[in-house]
């Protein structure tokens, strides 16, 4: 049993039925815009590993962030975090709803803070 999919070539061909003159490169750009839009709606579940750094509280998960194998994370919404325990197993850790807990502090050596740039 095969699954019917639309390839990019077929997609462009469908568009050219209505818009014969539409430049292929422009259509590809619009497809990428659509993928960004659709990506905001929880379509692609991903699991990635990251290494912890001693005394680092903040870990970048933005567009330029990478996992421990050097691949781009490309994260939109994190819904679960597991931390390795002393047996080497990953255990889910709770998400903190109230971030303003009284007893949390960052080390003076914290290097992952976002500082203002000079522009």
């Amino acid at each position, binding site marked *: 049993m095969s699954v*019917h*999919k*639309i390839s*990019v070539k077929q*997609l462009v061909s469908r*568009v050219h039925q*209505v*818009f014969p003159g*539409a430049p292929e490169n422009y259509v590809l750009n*619009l*497809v990428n815009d*659509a*993928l960004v839009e*659709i*990506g905001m*709606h*929880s*379509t*692609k*579940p*991903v699991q*990635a*590993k990251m*290494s*912890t*750094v*001693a*005394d*680092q*509280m*903040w*870990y*970048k*998960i933005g*567009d330029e*962030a990478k*996992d*421990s194998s050097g691949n781009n*994370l*490309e*994260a*939109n919404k*994190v819904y679960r*975090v*597991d*931390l*390795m*325990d002393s047996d*080497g197993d*990953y*255990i889910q*850790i*709770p998400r*903190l709803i109230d*971030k303003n807990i009284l*007893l*949390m*502090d960052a*080390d003076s050596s914290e290097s992952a803070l*976002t500082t203002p740039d000079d522009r």
Partner: protein
Amino acid sequence: MASSITYPDDRARWFIEGDKLCIVTNVDSSGNTRTTARKQWKAISEAVTDGLLLHYYGEPNNVISINDELDLDNTMHLAIVDYVKKCLYMDKAGNASDPNLIAVSMQLSNAHKLKFDESIKRYGMRKRDKTGGSRVLKSVSLM
């Protein structure tokens, strides 16, 4: 190398701020609970290779050439056709000088916009969800 934290579910917490993930724990690098009450929750004090496993919704891969495949479930493929046509009809309306052509192009653009929104936002979860069977009511998880 394994972590020194025996019970991460009890000893560590996470939250998101902007584009940063924050991990805090109340144990030191030896796995002992920090005794200073005022500074109990701090950053993890050890470097562990692959110590974190993140579960998240990622962005689909972009397409570079016409021979690429869409990095999406096939239930979403037609929505992309609608998105592209929505934009092209809008471009056509913007370039046309005939008022009738402009009106028709805008109507078709709106029709494709509606179809895109319906398939992604309104009924998107039903399409993406691979869960079958009867439904039950579940209270909201506060974790």
